[in-house]
């Protein structure tokens, strides 16, 4: 990867190259906006996302005639301000995405490094574990595990983290295998460097581009899974404003007020699209072919 970048005919500055990739720019910008919404939610949100007002239920968003200016995007079945809940929902989605990838990335990368470096029966065992994980129906197993552990944000992140490590393991393993026999690694082995040092300080930094790409894919994956689980009632617990949960709550009134379902779904699409654009863009930048 680094070699290919080195032989490009005209050296382009790193910053310009990154910004020149429209996917990275657009995706990054959108993620930045959502991240700011999540971090600054208490400052930006016009209302308390949990405050109910049963006299103000099902107010429509601003493009309707009945709309009320103080609730720009209307209110839900409990009279809670929808815009505020959508803003706070960014916290859940991003929190799940990042939290899951920290857990799953740690597991998957460690397994992949060890399998790829040592090979032999260790590799066989880890590859076998990966195959088993891939064979499990992920939505159903996650649902069952959350149901057993009791629906909560922490359970959800733990369960998804323990399930989504497969791609990290597969990609890290392949990358480690290709690096293992390079001269700088044999050199380190010759001077007696210990394997944890070789793995985490020498091999791992050499594949950070690839790992970043997998990370974005898995963040998107986790966000989508969270919304699906919350939609099915086995994700985060009400009254927490998760976009998936909001879709489930709005579903009963979808015929009269379709925007209750449309808006949170649009937020999910936007965020996942942004993360994927960033990931695809980075993949192009790190020189991997578009697959």
């Amino acid at each position, binding site marked *: 990867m680094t070699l290919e970048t080195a032989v490009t005919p005209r050296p382009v500055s790193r910053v310009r190259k990154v910004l020149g990739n429209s996917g990275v720019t657009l995706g990054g910008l959108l993620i930045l906006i959502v991240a700011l919404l999540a971090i600054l939610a208490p400052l930006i949100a016009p209302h308390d996302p949990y405050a109910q007002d049963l006299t103000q239920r099902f107010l429509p968003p601003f493009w309707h005639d009945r709309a009320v200016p103080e609730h720009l995007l209307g209110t839900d079945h409990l009279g809670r301000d929808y815009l505020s809940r959508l803003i706070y929902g960014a916290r859940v989605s991003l929190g799940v995405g990042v939290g899951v990838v920290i857990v799953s990335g740690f597991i998957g990368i460690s397994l992949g490094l060890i399998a790829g470096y040592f090979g032999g029966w260790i590799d*066989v065992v880890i*590859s*076998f574990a990966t*195959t*088993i994980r*891939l*064979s*499990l*129906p*992920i*939505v*159903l*197993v996650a*649902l*069952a*595990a959350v*149901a*057993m*552990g009791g629906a909560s944000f922490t359970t959800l992140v733990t369960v998804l983290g323990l399930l989504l490590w497969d791609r990290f393991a597969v990609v890290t393993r392949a990358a480690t295998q290709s690096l293992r026999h390079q001269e700088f690694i044999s050199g380190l082995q010759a001077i007696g460097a210990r394997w944890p040092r070789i793995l985490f300080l020498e091999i791992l930094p050499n594949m950070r581009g690839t790992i970043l790409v997998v990370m974005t894919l898995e963040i*998107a994956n986790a966000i*989508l899974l969270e*919304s*699906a689980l919350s*939609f*099915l*009632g*086995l994700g985060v617990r009400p009254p927490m404003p998760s976009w*998936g949960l909001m*879709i489930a709550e709005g*579903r009963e009134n*979808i*015929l009269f007020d*379709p925007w209750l*379902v*449309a808006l949170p*779904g649009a937020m*999910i*699409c936007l965020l*996942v*699209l942004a993360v*994927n*654009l960033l990931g*695809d863009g980075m993949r192009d930048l790190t020189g991997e*072919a*578009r*697959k």
Partner: protein
Amino acid sequence: MLSFLLRRLVVALGVAVAVSALSFALIFLTGDPAIAIAGSGGSADDAEAIRLAYGFNRPIVVQYADWIGSALTGDFGQSIYFNIPVSEIIGNRIPVTLTLGMLAFATALAIALPLGVAAAMRPNGFIDRFALVLAVSGQAVPSFWLGLMAIVVFGVWYGLVPISGTDTWQGYILPVLVLAYSAIPELMRITRSGMIEVLNTDYIRSAQAKGLPTGRVILVHALRNAVLPLISLSAVQLGILLSGSIVIESVFAVNGLGRLAWESLLRSDLPVVQAIILILSLFYVVLTTAADLLNAWLDPRLRGGAA
């Protein structure tokens, strides 16, 4: 070929055993399944009675052996909620999920294959860009949300299709399309990249150079080789469609395995959940094993290395 076949079957069998142990172990995640079955209103005596009735007081290995032994003969125990054999309930639901999954897969393939080939013919051309937009959006849209919006637009506003259930064939239209949409991006991308790779090889160029018609070159020479990675992916995607239909089935009120699993979870009917997890996992193992064998048969180079 024979040693590859044997090796691959041993791995598949190992995975199947491990997966069955995991689906069995799932009900012990809570610590005590008897309390879970007794529910929040159950007393300690209730839990004790359940423990005896279900044999939870026996060693876990004995319980597993008992469960898997019966499962092999098609006996998955009694449903706690319905109080009838699990196999009876599941037997009614499998055809629905299979129909939904197969139709969705066929639809996805029918769209992804030609689109991927067309995109590969002219990279960065109009069709390629359209395909890219379709793929990128397909991976960003949550399918349950797409399903709900489709119900509103096509079911309610235009009244073109029934809004729930699969009593008539029209009821399958929306769930199949929505489910297919989630499988299109990956299938199309791998067709496209496979085709681009093959189209750049010498034997394709010489086929073109000796004046063979383009259509023939693409269909007969290129596609046949580009399709190899598609076989593995197809197995994976079909497996994902079968197990992923859980969300779609609950959106469209389709009485398949997924919806049954979800409802059983909500009413703590664990024997049903266990059985469904096992069956879906085994589908996946069979599909991917079959794909590997098919690939090895089509491409002898693969027989040596794969474990």
